[in-house]
């Protein structure tokens, strides 16, 4: 249901993504692992066209968007069928928790205020933040902010959630609450892409693991395969090294 076909991305002359192909089924959780600079974030951001792929096709459900001919409407459709969770949370600083979650419903989907509020409250309930509705992001802990970030991404009920290192900015003691929230979302059957350095978490939560290096997918497989029986020497090195560091 989500298909990336031959995605290429250049920054000027730097070839950052060198023909990425991925197929993901509905409800699958896919972790993208790889060393720094390998193109993980770029790949994720190409899915919702925060970065425009230089070439390639992004397909979500029935919507097929070719980078060479993507219209504004195409990009809008990709953005509303994806939800993104950022490393730095990127909550709208001038809006309260509730407003952060509601704004996509009221302004992008044009849903009536009271209905949008009801939906937002339900989602905030799921991430355990109904006691912080009128707080501004600056008044929340990193973990709380990231849970609002997840709620905001969920609000538009996207086909797929994109997480870019959702716990990398958090103090260690706050990581667990966010991982638990992500896990709970995964359990609802949401399709997810997760870029993370939390290897143990990736191993536990993923249906599929993609290992990237230098703009290509070196190897992909089930979490079991990738962590226990990687085919490629490079995969083995990376996963074992990082596991030791954990």
């Amino acid at each position: 249901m989500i298909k990336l076909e031959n995605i290429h991305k250049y920054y000027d002359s730097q070839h950052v993504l060198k023909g990425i192909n991925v197929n993901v089924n509905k409800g699958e959780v896919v972790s993208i692992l790889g060393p720094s600079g390998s193109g993980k974030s770029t790949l994720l951001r190409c899915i919702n066209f925060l970065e425009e792929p230089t070439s390639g096709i992004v397909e979500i459900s029935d919507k097929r968007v070719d980078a060479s001919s993507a219209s504004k409407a195409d990009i809008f459709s990709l953005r509303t069928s994806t939800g993104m969770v950022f490393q730095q949370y990127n909550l709208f600083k001038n809006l309260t928790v509730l407003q952060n979650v509601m704004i996509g419903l009221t302004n992008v989907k044009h849903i009536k205020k009271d209905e949008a509020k009801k939906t937002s409250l339900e989602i905030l309930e799921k991430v355990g933040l109904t006691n912080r509705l009128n707080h501004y992001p600056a008044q929340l802990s990193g973990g709380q902010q990231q849970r609002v970030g997840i709620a905001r991404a969920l609000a538009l009920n996207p086909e797929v959630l994109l997480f870019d290192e959702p716990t990398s900015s958090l103090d260690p003691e706050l990581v667990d609450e966010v991982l638990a929230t992500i896990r709970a979302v995964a359990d609802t059957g949401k399709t997810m892409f997760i870029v993370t350095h939390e290897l143990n978490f990736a191993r536990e939560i993923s249906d599929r693991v993609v290992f990237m290096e230098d703009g290509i997918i070196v190897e992909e497989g089930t979490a079991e395969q990738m962590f226990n029986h990687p085919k490629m020497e490079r995969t083995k090195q990376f996963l074992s090294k990082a596991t030791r560091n954990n």
Partner: protein
Amino acid sequence: MENLLDIQFLIESFPAIISRLPITIGIAVGSLILSLVIGVITALIKIYRVPVLRVISSIYVSFIRGTPLLVQLYLVFYGIPKVIYFLQIEYGWLQSADVNSIAPEVYALLAFSINLGAYLSETIRSAIESVDRGQFEAAKAIGMTPAQMMLKIIFPQALAVAIPNLGNMFITTIKDTALVFIIGVVDIMGQAKILGSRGLAFFEVYIAVSIVYWILCIVVERLLVKIEKRARRYERGIAS
């Protein structure tokens, strides 16, 4: 005995001067609003690197910054009627405009808007650019249009950053409006001049008018502090 000041005259000049306060405030506030529009447009032109317009707007900013306000005031006052007249004669445009019926207040408002707009342009541009890139990305990621992103997310945050600067420029503008008398606007300064020549007591009326400016600026400063607090409330306090 020779008096330094005719206190009586000084005090009696206040009501007449204050009666002209709406003109001074009107020109200052009106040009603040118009110049914010100009400033936002020119800032966006620069940020989005709009071809052609970008060159025009940087020439505009450079010209305004490089010439005295007084000269700009004269240029608008003498230039605009000429241009309108020329367009009427040569092209038959703007036939309904009667150049002679345009109030000097209108020229003053235009000149100050054009002037302040150029100065605000840079302030607004840097305020918009100071907003964290992540805010733009998050807005795009949920599917907001550029206009929604700007209005709902970016401008409110940029405004909070820019208010101290905007406020200073606004206060400068209030004081600069004292120039409008030269094109025939009777603002508080104009009124002071009139009273002064009538009573041959210039020192008195200028003391009076300076007190009015001073108090006006103090009040505006207080107001700005309140507005800034409100605009920045998301940075700390809890929403009600």
